[in-house]
């Protein structure tokens, strides 16, 4: 939920990047894999619902072993409860299965996004069904929730969902607003603390140079969304890691229906490597911190994916693998023959 239809720019975003950044990014894009050999990545924010199987294939090839898909704004408003219900169900069902076909472990966070919190009648209905989804297997948090326009309705449902998270002992994934970001971020943190959430249970997302210090100082996790062209450029990300280290910092792609890049994490890891960041620090910001923060849900078991996706034995019947959904998931993209 990263683009704003009210800003009529070619690529609206959280951040503006420089031409120089764009140039470096394009250079790395050509051969980033050479720098990330043997690395494994955990993307804690990617909207696979909006992506194709080519993206899943590319993620798997680039070393992404696990992902978290937060519930978000689908780009146009939903008009009824049923479409929320079906969307949440797809996050824990269909999308999880699609991901498994490419050997990627799929988790999700469930929440009422800030934009649609402004439709109060519908928001009330959505709040009714949220607990049912939050208790499900593989749901690792409440998210992404927070502020967009920073209205009273947004605040009301942000608070209500913080209470749900507290009650259920789940981490929270907080979307910070595009406009008036610094104030919105401070407000989001203050409210979380007011509701008694431990800062280590809260991941503040879409940070930039202006917000990161306060987020870390107060003990929250700080997530950074790397977007091509316009969001957090990955050169700036490298500078942030140089300045603040790797404690409680994580990067994500937030790839969605807008112009975005699901490979943002491996590419950023490559750039960090080029710029001399240590392998240990790269591992923390591109894998470990995401894992540690969301594993607090009790729903993530690293051995399910670290050595390749372990096929759940219950998905076998009489010794036959029954994971296939009708086609061989891997095809040779370079072949001119399509069979």
């Amino acid at each position, binding site marked *: 939920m990263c683009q704003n239809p009210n800003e009529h720019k070619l690529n609206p975003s959280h951040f503006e990047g420089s031409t120089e950044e764009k140039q470096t990014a394009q250079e790395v894009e050509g051969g980033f894999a050479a720098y990330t050999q043997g690395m494994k990545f955990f993307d804690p924010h990617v909207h696979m619902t909006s992506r194709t199987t080519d993206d899943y294939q590319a993620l798997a090839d680039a070393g992404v072993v696990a992902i978290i898909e937060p519930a978000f704004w689908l780009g146009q408003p939903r008009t009824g409860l049923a479409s929320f*219900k079906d969307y*949440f*169900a797809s996050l*824990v*069902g*269909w999308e*999880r*299965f699609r991901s498994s076909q490419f050997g990627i472990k799929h988790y999700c966070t469930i929440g009422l996004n800030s934009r649609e919190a402004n439709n109060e009648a519908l928001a009330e209905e959505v709040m009714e*069904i949220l*607990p*049912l*989804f939050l*208790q*499900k*297997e*593989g749901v690792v948090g409440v998210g992404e929730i927070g502020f967009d326009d920073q209205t009273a309705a947004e605040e009301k449902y942000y608070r209500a969902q913080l209470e749900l998270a507290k009650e259920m002992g789940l981490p929270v994934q907080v979307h910070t607003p595009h406009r008036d970001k610094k104030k919105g971020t401070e407000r989001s943190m203050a409210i979380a603390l007011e509701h008694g959430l431990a800062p280590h249970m809260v991941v503040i997302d879409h940070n930039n140079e202006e917000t990161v210090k306060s987020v870390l100082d107060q003990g929250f996790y700080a997530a950074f969304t790397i977007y091509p062209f316009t969001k957090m450029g990955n050169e700036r990300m490298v500078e942030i890691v140089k300045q603040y280290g790797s404690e409680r910092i994580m990067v994500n792609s937030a790839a969605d229906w807008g112009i975005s890049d699901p490979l943002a994490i491996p590419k950023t890891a490559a750039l960090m490597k080029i710029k001399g960041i240590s392998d240990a620090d790269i591992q923390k910001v591109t894998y470990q911190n995401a894992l540690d923060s969301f594993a607090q849900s*009790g*729903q993530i078991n690293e051995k399910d994916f670290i050595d390749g996706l372990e096929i759940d*034995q*219950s*998905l*076998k*019947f*009489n010794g*036959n693998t*029954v*994971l*296939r*959904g*009708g086609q061989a998931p891997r095809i040779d993209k370079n072949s001119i023959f399509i*069979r």
Partner: protein
Amino acid sequence: MNTAELLYQSIQSLASTTELAWLEDKLIADSKGLSLAFVMAPRQVAKTRVGIIPGWNWQNGTLDQLVRVYLLIHLAEKEDGKSRIETLFDTAEMNELVALYRALPVLPTPEIWLHRATDAVRSNMGPVFDAIAFGNPYPTTYFSELAWNQLVLKCIFNDKPIHLIEGLDERANQALANTLADFAHERWAAGRRVPSQVWRLIRNFQTETKEQDIKRLAESADPNDQKAAELILENSPLEAWRVLEKEETAY
């Protein structure tokens, strides 16, 4: 002993004291509590491997799944049990769907869930399709011929092993034989094939192309296809087809 008692016996032997206490507590809950317990089960009960339970054919199941089925049996007996279970279907994640479809044949009135069962055949989630298709007595007992034929055809279409379908040979029929022959021709035209054991569903029926098809199988370079042709020509008993009960590539 009925299925519920059988399940409970297995649960008791596998569950820890804490897990059992949690279950006992939930069993006395109202229908809403039972629904939520169904959802929460894997957070409270481990995925302990369950061995073979006599009278229950869910092999390779796990304890949390067994608990889910047991909770469903109790939920189905409640006054608003049906609408609660409908909601569970509508909001289910993948493992929940598997438990729901596995539970259908042991619920008090299995026939009322026919619309859900045929939905599972339409599912593109592999484990969900498999939950209704394989080792589950529901389709053979309750499916119409049309629904049954869809199940078998989709199974072959998705390159899954048909011999895991209960009642496979008993429910073979002329319409299915015609469809499968057509399907095999389509595959041949595309340079693909159907697993050789598919021909066991055609052996007792006359299709328009049966003679040419058997000839083609007999002349095939694939030893499995040759075997299928031989079995049909020699009018071998069903037992002899067991050698072809394996996964085969479609290319």
